[in-house]
C-alpha cells in the first residue's frame, strides 16, 4: 500500500455508522439515571454486561458517523507503530526466515531503517529478539514473533487502553466545554473549542 493510500485525509475516508446488528462488536450503556457507564464488547456477551445490578442495554440509536479506521493509522496512533514496522511484518510473514538485507531490498528501505524498526517492534512487545551463536564466532540477532495468541491479546488490550485514554479525553473535553459555557454565558462557543481553550 502506498503512502498516499495510508495517509488519506479524513475528508476522503469512508464514514461508517455503528450497526447494532452487525455482530462485529456491541456497545452497551447503563440505564440508571446519572450513570455514564458505556462499554464496548468484542466477542461474546456471556454473562451479559451489568451495571448497578441491572443488565446494561445495547445501544441501538447512534446517529453519528465516524471515519472508517485504516489499520495502519490505528497501529500508528495506538501503538506508535509506523508504516515501516507494519511493512516489515507483512513482508516477512510466510516468507521467513529472511535476512535484514533481504527485507531492506524488498521494501526499498535502508538496512539501518529495517534494524531500527525491528527494535521498535521489540519495544512494543510485538517481536522478540534473541541472540544465536554464529559459526564463525560472535552472535547473530534474530527477531521473531511471539506466540500469536499472546500477540492478539496484547494488541487488543493495548488498543483498549488507548481507546480508554481517548474516551477519557473526550469526557474531559465535554466537561471543560460545560465549564466554559457556565463561566461565559454571553459568549458563543468558538468553532474549534478545544484549540481556543488551549490558547488561554
Amino acid at each position: 500500500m502506498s503512502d498516499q493510500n495510508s495517509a488519506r485525509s479524513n475528508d476522503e475516508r469512508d464514514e461508517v455508522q455503528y450497526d447494532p446488528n452487525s455482530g462485529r462488536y456491541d456497545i452497551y450503556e447503563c440505564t440508571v439515571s446519572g450513570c455514564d457507564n458505556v462499554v464496548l464488547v468484542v466477542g461474546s456477551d456471556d454473562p451479559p454486561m451489568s451495571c448497578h445490578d441491572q443488565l446494561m442495554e445495547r445501544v441501538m440509536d447512534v446517529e453519528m458517523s465516524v471515519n472508517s479506521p485504516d489499520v495502519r493509522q490505528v497501529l500508528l496512533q495506538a501503538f506508535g507503530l509506523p508504516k515501516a514496522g507494519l511493512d516489515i511484518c507483512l513482508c516477512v510473514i510466510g516468507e521467513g526466515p529472511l535476512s535484514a538485507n533481504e527485507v531492506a531490498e524488498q521494501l526499498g528501505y535502508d538496512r539501518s531503517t529495517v534494524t531500527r524498526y525491528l527494535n521498535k517492534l521489540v519495544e512494543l512487545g510485538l517481536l522478540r529478539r534473541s541472540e544465536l551463536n554464529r559459526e564463525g564466532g560472535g552472535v547473530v540477532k534474530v527477531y521473531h514473533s511471539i506466540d500469536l495468541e499472546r500477540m492478539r491479546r496484547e494488541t487488543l488490550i493495548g488498543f483498549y487502553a488507548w481507546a480508554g485514554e481517548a474516551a477519557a479525553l473526550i469526557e474531559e473535553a465535554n466537561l471543560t466545554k460545560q465549564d466554559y459555557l457556565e463561566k461565559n454565558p454571553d459568549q458563543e462557543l468558538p468553532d474549534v473549542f478545544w484549540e481556543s481553550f488551549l490558547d488561554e
Partner: protein
Amino acid sequence: MSVTRRSVLEQLAAATDATRRETTTFEALATTLDTDEPTVESHVDGLTACELAKPYPDGSVRITITGEELLALDTDELVVVDSP
C-alpha cells in the same frame, strides 16, 4: 504443495548435523521435499544469507549451528535474521 524456506531449513536439520559437519545434497533435499532442485537452491541461497545454511563447492550443504539454534527457539513464522 509449495516448499517454503522454513521447510527447507527443517529438512536440512533432519538430514544434516552442524557439529559433526554432516551434509546432504540439493538433489536429496529436492526429492524429500517433492520439489525441483532450483527451488531448493533458491531457498538455500536465502538461508545462507541468513547464516542458517552452509553450502560447499562440491554441491553438498548442511545446516549451521545458528540454524539449529533458530529451530530450537520454536518460533512462529515471522523471523528476521540480522547478522553483522
